[in-house]
């Protein structure tokens, strides 16, 4: 901004000097003055950091043109291979292009400024939620209360963690929407402005890093009161934060990283890896335990790919096993158990997180879903009515044969 003002002042001085000296000027001097003023305007355009600056220069270009228009023939000759008109056209084109760029930057700067306020709010809100969750977890750990009281504490804790995670989902969405739309060309300009105006309270890198640290600490605390759904949500949250960082991390580092871009990048990337490792381990262990409690043994799995393979093999094998059984209903009971897990959990309660975190893709879910339908058809036992009806038919047939023989 200061530079810009300096150049505009230089430009005005250049104009004044032309006018003051115009009484006894040589053509060469006029050409020199033209070139000096031209260079001053170009530098002014390059240094412009606000719409007000560039608007003032656009007005200056018109005055500049009027000042030299009487010398255009001489200038066409002196400026060869360029010309008076081509020089003016270049100034106007540069000014328009800078004006366009500044409009975008000011618009983005305004949005970033709004987001800075949001980030401050995020930070205090997140701190409150973390505090609440931590104190509830500690209360549960030290609780000597009755079972009813403890259950109440656990419910409140789970609710608190869920609220905090939902808050992070929303915050990450806000960051993504704002920063993903930033035009790469304006990042340097925004970085210059942000470096001066943004405090650490408003720095998104600070809040992302602190959110990661909190999550890693929560994961290390290993609370045994969270459910599989909670672990799936945390895993999906990590997945989302990772994706958002992959998308806008470079922009955030460029705008807010200052001289510590590399340190910030290293720290956040490392925290993301640690969080992923703990969130992943907890989620797969919890899912395994859940299936074990439900008496569904699909075999070993510890990642997305092995989980899908285990499910697919389990359903395929169970369908094959059911094809020979007509009267027995053991396989049908297995089917019902699995089908309940699949319908109430995978397709309903957990679906949002399973899809969000790519635990299973929608096509994998659809594939297993159709195989489960086939398993259901194959394992469904015949109803008692039909069995009685068949028995009665056979009995009637035998009676008929005996009657015919006796006759």
């Amino acid at each position, binding site marked *: 901004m200061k530079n810009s003002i300096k150049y505009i002042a230089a430009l005005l001085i250049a104009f004044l000097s032309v006018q003051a*000296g115009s*009484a*006894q*000027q*040589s*053509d*060469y*001097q006029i*050409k020199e003055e033209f070139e000096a003023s031209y260079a001053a305007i170009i530098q002014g355009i390059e240094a412009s950091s606000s719409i007000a600056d560039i608007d003032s220069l656009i007005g200056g270009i018109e005055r500049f043109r009027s000042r030299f228009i009487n010398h255009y023939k*001489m200038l066409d*000759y*002196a400026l060869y291979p360029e010309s008076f008109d081509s020089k003016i056209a270049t100034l106007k084109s540069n000014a328009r292009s800078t004006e366009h760029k500044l409009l975008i930057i000011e618009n983005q700067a305004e949005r970033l400024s709004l987001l800075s306020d949001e980030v401050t709010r995020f930070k205090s809100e997140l701190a409150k939620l973390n505090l609440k969750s931590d104190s509830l977890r500690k209360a549960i750990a030290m609780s000597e209360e009755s079972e009813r009281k403890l259950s109440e504490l656990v419910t409140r804790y789970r609710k608190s963690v869920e609220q905090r995670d939902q808050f992070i989902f929303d915050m990450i969405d806000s960051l993504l929407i704002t920063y993903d739309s930033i035009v790469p060309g304006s990042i340097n300009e925004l970085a210059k402005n942000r470096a001066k105006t943004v405090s650490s309270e408003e720095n998104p890198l600070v809040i992302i890093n602190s959110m990661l640290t909190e999550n890693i600490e929560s994961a290390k605390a290993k609370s045994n009161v969270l459910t599989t759904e909670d672990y799936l949500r945390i895993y999906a949250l990590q997945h989302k934060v990772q994706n958002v960082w992959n998308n806008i991390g470079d922009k955030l580092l460029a705008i807010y990283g200052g001289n510590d871009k590399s340190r910030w990048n290293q720290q956040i990337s490392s925290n993301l890896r640690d969080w992923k490792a703990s969130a992943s381990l907890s989620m797969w262990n919890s899912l395994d335990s859940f299936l074990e409690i439900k008496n569904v043994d699909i075999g070993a799995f510890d990642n997305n790919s092995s989980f899908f393979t285990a499910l697919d093999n389990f359903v395929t094998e169970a369908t094959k096993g059911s094809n020979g059984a007509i009267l027995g209903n053991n396989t049908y009971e297995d089917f019902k158990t699995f089908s309940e897990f699949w319908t109430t959990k995978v397709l309903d309660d957990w679906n949002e997180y399973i899809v969000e975190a790519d635990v299973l893709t929608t096509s994998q879910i659809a594939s297993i879903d159709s195989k489960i339908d086939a398993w259901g058809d194959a394992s469904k036992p015949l109803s008692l009515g039909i069995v009685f009806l068949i028995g009665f038919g056979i009995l009637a047939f035998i009676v008929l044969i005996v009657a015919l023989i006796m006759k």
Partner: protein
Amino acid sequence: MKTSRWFFLVLAAFVFTSACKTFKVENVNYAQQVESVLVPTYDGTVTDARYAISFNILPFQYQEMKDSSSVKVEKVRLIRNQRGYYFITANGFSNVYVMEPIDSGLRLKERIAVSETGLEAPAFNLRHPYIQLIDTKTSKIISLNEKGINKKEERES
């Protein structure tokens, strides 16, 4: 037969050389619209890349200061009029040198005395058919052609 062949060859050579001597293009305008301001190198050479001329300023400096041991001229002002004569001067010079181009050289056509004390900040303009000399410090304006001063005007701004 042999004589007539020699006669024909001599006639052809005569016609050819006559044609070469008489071929010329008239109304050529050599005028340079804006003066060149040239900075001498350490050895006094000035070069105008646009108009493709290069010469040494030390002989001019010697004419003015009787000293060509080192370059004392800061900037050389050079302009060419419609007839192809170069007008050369510099800060501190009392004269404008009108030079005509010759084979690998410049020959003095006219030395025009323009200042008794030396020009302070000279500059040339082309103001057809004259070359206008301005001393931008003193606001003195003099119209020149290759023969000398056409008219002298002095204006104080």
